[in-house]
Each structure stands twice: as structure tokens, then as C-alpha cells.
């Protein structure tokens, strides 16, 4: 029973730590966005990095995804989906961005 109690405290503190991490990352992102404006090149880069960090924090603390054997199937699934997603997003942005640029060039000529 005492064992259970300690386990519960450990798991609860994991959720709370995850929440505090995510909250700190969110507040930093909004803080620098508000202070400097996201138009500044490096500010938006920083916001992007903070967003990525928060994704990792939430996956680890809330969804319990890590490299342990039991969650490896899920990790594989997530990594595969991420790959599909990156191909879709980067491919779309590349092709349409290229098209966009060429059409503007055509108008200027």
C-alpha cells in the first residue's frame, strides 16, 4: 500500500512537472512574440524551436513516449507518421512555393 502511494506521488509529479515545463515554454514563446514581434527573423525561429521543444515535452510527460521496449511500437508509428507528414508538408510547400515564385517572375517580366 505504501508502495502504491509512492508510485502515485511519482506519477503525479511527472504530470505536474510536464505541465510546468510546457507552461514555461508557452509563456516564453508568447513573451518574446509580444515583446519583439514575430516578424523579426530570429524571434520566429526561436518560437518555432520552443514549439518543437514543447511537442517533445508533452510526448514524454503526458503521453509517456520514450525509448523503453514497451512503447517502441508507438514510437515507430509516430516516427513513420511524422515522416509521411514531413514529405506531404515540405513537398507541398516546395512545389507551390516554386510555382508562386515563377508566376511572380512572369508578371514582372
Amino acid at each position: 500500500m505504501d508502495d502504491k502511494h509512492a508510485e502515485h506521488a511519482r506519477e503525479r509529479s511527472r504530470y505536474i512537472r510536464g505541465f510546468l515545463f510546457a507552461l514555461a515554454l508557452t509563456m516564453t514563446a508568447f513573451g518574446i512574440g509580444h515583446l519583439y514581434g514575430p516578424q523579426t527573423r530570429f524571434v520566429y525561429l526561436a518560437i518555432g524551436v520552443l514549439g518543437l521543444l514543447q511537442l517533445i515535452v508533452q510526448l514524454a510527460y503526458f503521453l509517456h513516449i520514450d525509448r523503453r521496449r514497451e512503447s517502441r511500437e508507438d514510437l515507430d508509428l509516430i516516427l513513420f507518421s511524422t515522416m509521411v507528414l514531413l514529405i506531404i508538408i515540405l513537398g507541398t510547400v516546395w512545389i507551390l512555393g516554386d510555382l508562386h515564385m515563377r508566376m511572380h517572375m512572369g508578371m514582372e517580366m
Partner: protein
Amino acid sequence: MSHSDSQSYPGINLGDIDPKQQQRVETVQFGFWVFIMSDLVYFGLMFAIYITMIDAQAGGPGPHDLFDLRSLFAQTVLLLTSSMTVGLASLALKYHLGLRRVYFWLVVTLLLGLGFLTLEIMDFMNMAAKGGVPQRSGFLSAFYGLVPLHGLHVATGCLWLVILMIQMRAIGVTDQIKSRLMRFGLFWHFLDLIWIGIFTIVYFGGLAYG
């Protein structure tokens, strides 16, 4: 696979049930992960469309005229907090801390979800009042294709949570109900992950490049 490990399955786990049942639950849970990942691909497509449409404002109102960062911040905090409370609800269930505490955290989660939706709908109404309606430009069509899609997911999640609580009351906390709560928690955490993408790419990205 050892079941003494308290976190033998990612997401939420049930605590003590017999191994055969555990096996079944894990299969169903993995299937739900597959659904979530296909949903993620759908969201990914909408993100891709939005990114290519940021410039397509057709002289209509753009991100700087429409986005309200203060409301966005409030929505973000509400959703993030609800992601923690759903985790606390599952812990209360797992460690037998009493049904009252499970209900308490689930109701808090529901209220936070509804608060998020209220703020979001108010945002959309403010945007519409400034002329930011879906048919105005490609940018706004892409925006309304993506952000309310997430909102619809949250609304569905709220409905799911209400049904789940009614079921808990009607048939008690069976293994099946526990496994449903696990999947609900997974779904809810996933929506918070999507929201990180939305405030980073749609809102800040829109302000940076729009």
C-alpha cells in the same frame, strides 16, 4: 512483458487487471494510436495548405488585423491545463483514490475544454466582424479549414467526455470504461499537441510572414 512496471503502456494505464484483458486493451489502444496518426496526417495537409496560402490575402484583412494574441494565450493555457487534469483523472482511477476525485478532475477537464471553445468562438466572431470570413480570401479559407477543425475535435471530445461520465454512473467503473478513459486521455493530449502547431504556425507564423 512485465506488468509490475507501473507504466507498462504509454498514455494511461489501468493498474491491476488480468494479463489476458491487458493484452486486449493494448491491442485496442494501439489501434487508437493508428487512428490518431491518420488524423494527424489530415491536420498536416491542412497545415500545408495554410502555409502555401499565407500570402493569398487578396486585399482582405490579414493576420495583423485579425489575430488577438491575448485571447490566444488564454486558450493555450486553458487547453494545456486540461491536458494535465485529464492525466490526474486517470491517476485517480488507477490508484483507486475514489470516484469522487475521478469525477472532479473530469468535470474540471470538461469546463476547461468548454472555456477554450467559448474563447475560440468569440475570436471567430470578432474576426467575422472585421470582415475575416472564410470566403474573403484563400488565406482565410485555409485558416477556417484548419483552426475550427481542431475546435470541432475539442467539441467532440467534450461530448465524448459527457457520455463517458454518464456511462461511468450508469454501469460503474468496469475494465471497459477504464480502457475508454485511456483512449479519451490519448485523444485529449493529442489535441493539445495539434494546438501547439496551430499557435506556432498559424498564429505566430501568420504574423511573421503574412
